[in-house]
């Protein structure tokens, strides 16, 4: 069966429709079947419609996503309560250890991401242990890897090597995303996988990180958001008077 690829973190400037359209079309050309674009918290529903229409024209599947950047775990819980039923993917950018721990143990969070600054990368063994008990995945953006040069890139590679090794030992799924903010930073799925070899991911797990891992998140969340979903393990299979 042909592998399908997903880029769950495409970041065009939504105020620039031309650039957004070009980046969506280019994703299809580069071989992606599904993309997720982070939406602003203030206007999730309005943005979703036109992005979905644009993606349909480009023959690519669109997934709605929000990136939460809470300062405290209380703020995170409040945001999750309001947004979980509205978007397909919720990613949390963890800027403090308290938020990182809360996000890792919450079933409503899909993706954990960390800033490039090393002192804000909280993905350690304790974090991975919490994440392994839920369905949270660790997201790695490739953009800083190709834009940084010299010492900062060396330090980032070293941190990513440690984090992916921890994720592997605790069986936390890893997702490779482009994080591209402009067309020239977009790369093919196989190129993302090749870049992952720089921080010690083997080829098969790197390819999975661009295909089956993100696809499984989308599949799971779409089934949860469908009107037939009742509770985990329970869904409506038929409606009508004879049921």
């Amino acid at each position: 069966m042909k592998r399908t690829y997903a880029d769950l973190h495409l970041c065009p400037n939504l105020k620039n429709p031309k650039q957004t359209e070009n980046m969506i079309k280019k994703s299809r050309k580069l071989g992606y079947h599904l993309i997720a674009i982070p939406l602003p918290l203030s206007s999730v529903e309005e943005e979703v419609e036109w992005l979905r229409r644009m993606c349909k024209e480009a023959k690519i599947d669109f997934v709605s996503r929000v990136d939460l950047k809470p300062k405290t775990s209380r703020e995170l819980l409040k945001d999750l309560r309001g947004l979980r039923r509205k978007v397909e993917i919720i990613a949390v950018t963890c800027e403090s250890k308290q938020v990182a721990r809360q996000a890792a143990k919450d079933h409503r969070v899909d993706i954990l991401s960390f800033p490039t600054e090393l002192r804000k990368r909280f993905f350690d063994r304790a974090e991975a242990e919490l994440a392994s008990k839920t369905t949270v995945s660790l997201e790695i953006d490739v953009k800083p890897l190709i834009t940084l040069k010299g010492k900062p890139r060396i330090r980032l590679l070293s941190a990513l090597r440690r984090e992916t090794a921890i994720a592997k030992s605790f069986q936390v799924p890893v997702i490779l995303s482009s994080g591209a903010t402009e067309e020239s930073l977009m790369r093919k799925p196989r190129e993302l996988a090749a870049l992952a070899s720089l921080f010690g991911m083997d080829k098969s797990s790197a390819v999975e990180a661009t295909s089956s891992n993100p696809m499984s998140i989308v599949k799971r969340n779409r089934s949860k958001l469908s009107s037939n979903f009742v509770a985990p393990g329970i869904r409506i299979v038929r409606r009508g008077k004879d049921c």
Partner: protein
Amino acid sequence: MLKKVRRRYLALKIECDGTLNSREFINAVWNAVLTLYGEYGASKTNLNLIDYNSEEKLAVIRVAHATVEMIRAALASITRIGDKSVAIHVLTVSGTIKALHRKMKHLNH
């Protein structure tokens, strides 16, 4: 007995604002390989420019079979050549130039 050298030919598409000459292009590829893998790693790649078409922005390079993924990563890490914003994508990989051209024709159709 000496092992037969296995090679791979890579067809590349260069996306950039202006035009690049072949020297600028191959120097950028060498620099990317050297930056990521050092001189020892670069020595294993047997990197060679086979063909370069500046009008169509296509290039063909030859590398050692075992280092295709290294080259792919190095090419993906190139974002600028001189003052031009650049992205290089691998179109296809093949064991012979003949098969590479056949695959490229297939891609065009």
